[in-house]
C-alpha cells in the first residue's frame, strides 16, 4: 500500500524537478499558442507583427479544412452524415448497445451517410465524390475501415486456426501476403493496378478502392491480434463445450471469441487508432481527407505562412479521436477483465 506519511525527501525533490522541467519546456509553446497569439477574425494583416500563433487562419479556412470542396450551401449534409456515422461508432463502443438493433444501424448508417453525401435523391442536389473531403472522409474511411475489417479479421483468425488445411492455407497466405507489404503499396495497387485487372466498363471510384484497401489491409493485422487472443483460451474450454454438446460454431461465438477478444482489447484498439491515423495516407492517391484539405487550405498565398497553426489544428482533431479511443480501451478492459476477477 502507498503510505503518504513516508514519502521521502528524495521523492519530493524528484517530483519538483520533473514538474519544473516540464513547465519550462512547455512555457514557450504556451506563449506561442495563447499569450502571444492573435485571436478572433481580424483579417490576415493583423498577424503580420504577431510573434505568436495566428488563429484567424482557422476561422477563415476551418470550413475548407473540415469539409473540403463540398458545396458551401450544403455543408449541413456532411455534418449530419458524419454525426450519424460517429454516433453509430460510439454506440458500438458501448457494450450496453450490443443487440440486434445495432446490427441494423450498421446497415442503415452507411446508407444514410452515402445518401446524404452523394445526394441525387430526396431532393438533395447531387454532389460527386470527387468533391467530398475533409473530416467526413477521414471518419468514413476509419469507421467503415474498422467496422468491416474487424469481423473480417475474426474470420481470418478462425480460418488460420481451422483444422481444415485448405481454409488454414488460404487464411494464412492472405494474412502473410497483405501484412508483408506497406499500406501505401496496397493503396497504389488498389488505385492503379486494380482497374487494369477489372473488365473494361467496370468503374469503381477511387474512394471505394481506397476504402477497400484499408479494410483488407487492417483485417490482416486484426487477424493476428485475434489469433493471439484465441491462443490464450485453454483447450479445457473447448472440451467443456464438447462435453456439454455445444456446437463448434456456438463454441466459437459464445465461449472462445468473447474470452479471446477480451484478452486483446488493448492491441485491438491500438490498431483502430493506427487505422484512423493511416487514413491520412490516402492523400497520395488524391483523396481529400483531413490532411489533404489542410494542405489545400494552405494553397492560399495569403495564409500559407501559417501552416503551423493549420497542422496544429488537425493534429488536435486527430488527438481528440485517438485519445477517446484510448479511454475506451481502458473502460472495456475494466468491464471485461478486472471486474470478473480474472486479472
Amino acid at each position, binding site marked *: 500500500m502507498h503510505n503518504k506519511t513516508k514519502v521521502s525527501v528524495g521523492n519530493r525533490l524528484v517530483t519538483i524537478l520533473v514538474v519544473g522541467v516540464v513547465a519550462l519546456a512547455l512555457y514557450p509553446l504556451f506563449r506561442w499558442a495563447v499569450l502571444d497569439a492573435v485571436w478572433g477574425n481580424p483579417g490576415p494583416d493583423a498577424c503580420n507583427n504577431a510573434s505568436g500563433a495566428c488563429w484567424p487562419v482557422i476561422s477563415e479556412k476551418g470550413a475548407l479544412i473540415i469539409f473540403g470542396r463540398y458545396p458551401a450551401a450544403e455543408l449541413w449534409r456532411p455534418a449530419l452524415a458524419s454525426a450519424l456515422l460517429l454516433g453509430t461508432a460510439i454506440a458500438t463502443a458501448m457494450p450496453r448497445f450490443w443487440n440486434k438493433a445495432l446490427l441494423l444501424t450498421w446497415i442503415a448508417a452507411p446508407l444514410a451517410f452515402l445518401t446524404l453525401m452523394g445526394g441525387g435523391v430526396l431532393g438533395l442536389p447531387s454532389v460527386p465524390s470527387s468533391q467530398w473531403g475533409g473530416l467526413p472522409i477521414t471518419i468514413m474511411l476509419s469507421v467503415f475501415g474498422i467496422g468491416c475489417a474487424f469481423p473480417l479479421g475474426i474470420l481470418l483468425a478462425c480460418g488460420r486456426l481451422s483444422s481444415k488445411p485448405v481454409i488454414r492455407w488460404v487464411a494464412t497466405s492472405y494474412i502473410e501476403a497483405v501484412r508483408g507489404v506497406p499500406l501505401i503499396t496496397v493503396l497504389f495497387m488498389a488505385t492503379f493496378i486494380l482497374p487494369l485487372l477489372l473488365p473494361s466498363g467496370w468503374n469503381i471510384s477511387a474512394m471505394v478502392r481506397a476504402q477497400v484497401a484499408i479494410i483488407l489491409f487492417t483485417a490482416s493485422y486484426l487477424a493476428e491480434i485475434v489469433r493471439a487472443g484465441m491462443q490464450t483460451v*485453454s483447450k*479445457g*474450454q473447448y*472440451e*467443456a463445450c*464438447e*462435453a*456439454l*454438446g*455445444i*456446437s463448434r460454431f*456456438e463454441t466459437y461465438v*459464445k*465461449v472462445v471469441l*468473447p*474470452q479471446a477478444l*477480451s484478452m486483446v482489447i488493448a492491441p485491438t484498439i491500438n490498431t483502430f487508432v493506427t487505422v484512423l491515423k493511416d487514413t491520412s495516407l490516402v492523400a497520395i492517391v488524391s483523396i481529400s481527407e483531413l490532411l489533404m484539405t489542410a494542405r489545400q487550405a494552405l494553397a492560399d498565398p495569403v495564409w500559407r505562412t501559417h501552416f503551423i497553426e493549420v497542422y496544429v489544428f488537425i493534429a488536435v482533431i486527430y488527438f481528440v479521436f485517438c485519445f477517446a479511443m484510448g479511454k475506451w480501451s481502458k473502460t472495456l478492459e475494466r468491464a*471485461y477483465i478486472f*471486474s*470478473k*476477477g*480474472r486479472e
Partner: protein
Amino acid sequence: MLETAITLRNVEKYYSDFHVLKDINLTVRNGEKLVVCGPSGSGKSTMIRCINHLEEHQAGSIHVLGVELNDDVRNIARIRQSVGMVFQQFNLFPHLTVLENCTLAQTLVSRKPQDEAESVAMELLTRVRIADQARKYPGQLSGGQQQRVAIARSLSMRPKIMLFDEPTSALDPEMVKEVLEVMGELASDGMTMVCVTHEMAFARSVADRVIFMDHGRIVEENTPAEFFDHPSEPRLRDFLSQVLH
C-alpha cells in the same frame, strides 16, 4: 430401461506410437458407481474421456446407453447429451457468471427459453449449495466452489451418466470435502457415476465397484471391501500402500 449404461469391448487407443489403452473391457450398470484408480499415466483419464468421445479409440467398441460411439456425429451428439463430465481444472467459462455457466448449454443445445433455463440452473445451484453466488464470476470463487458450479453445469443438461476426471486433484485439501459431499449426494440419488479419483475413503464409502489400472490395462476389479482389504495384484498393493499412508 437398459440394464447396462456403458459397455467397453476390447478398446484400444494409441497416441501415435504410444499404446495408451490395451484391450479394455468394462461394463457399467445403470445406477452403478464405479471408481477408477491407478498411478498417473495408467490411462484412466484417457479411458473415461473415450466414453464421451473427447478422445477417439482406434479399435474395439464403446456403447453408451445402447448407442454405439463411432464416426457418426449424430451418435456422438446423442451420447454427449446424456453424459455429463466434470474436469480436474473445472473448465468453467470465466467470462460468464455462475448462473450463465449453468444456462448456456440449456439455451444453445436444448433450445430452452431463458427463464426456464434459469430456474433449472438455480435449482441445481441450490442443490450444490452455491445459489447465493449465482451472479458472481468463476474467478471470484474458491476452487471448491468452482468445482461445485462445474457439477451443477453438467447436471443442467439432465445427464443419465456423470463422468468425473480427478475432480478433487486441483483443490486445496480443505476444499476436497465439500466437493466429495456433493458427489456423495449425487450417488445416493441414483446417478450412474464413473469417477477417476485418488480419494480412497470416498471410493470405499460410495463406490459399488473399484477398478485399478496400470500401463493401459485394467489389472484389478472388485468390490471396495475386497479391493482395499484383500488386494490380489502386487502392483495394486504397492499403489495402495502409497496412497493410504
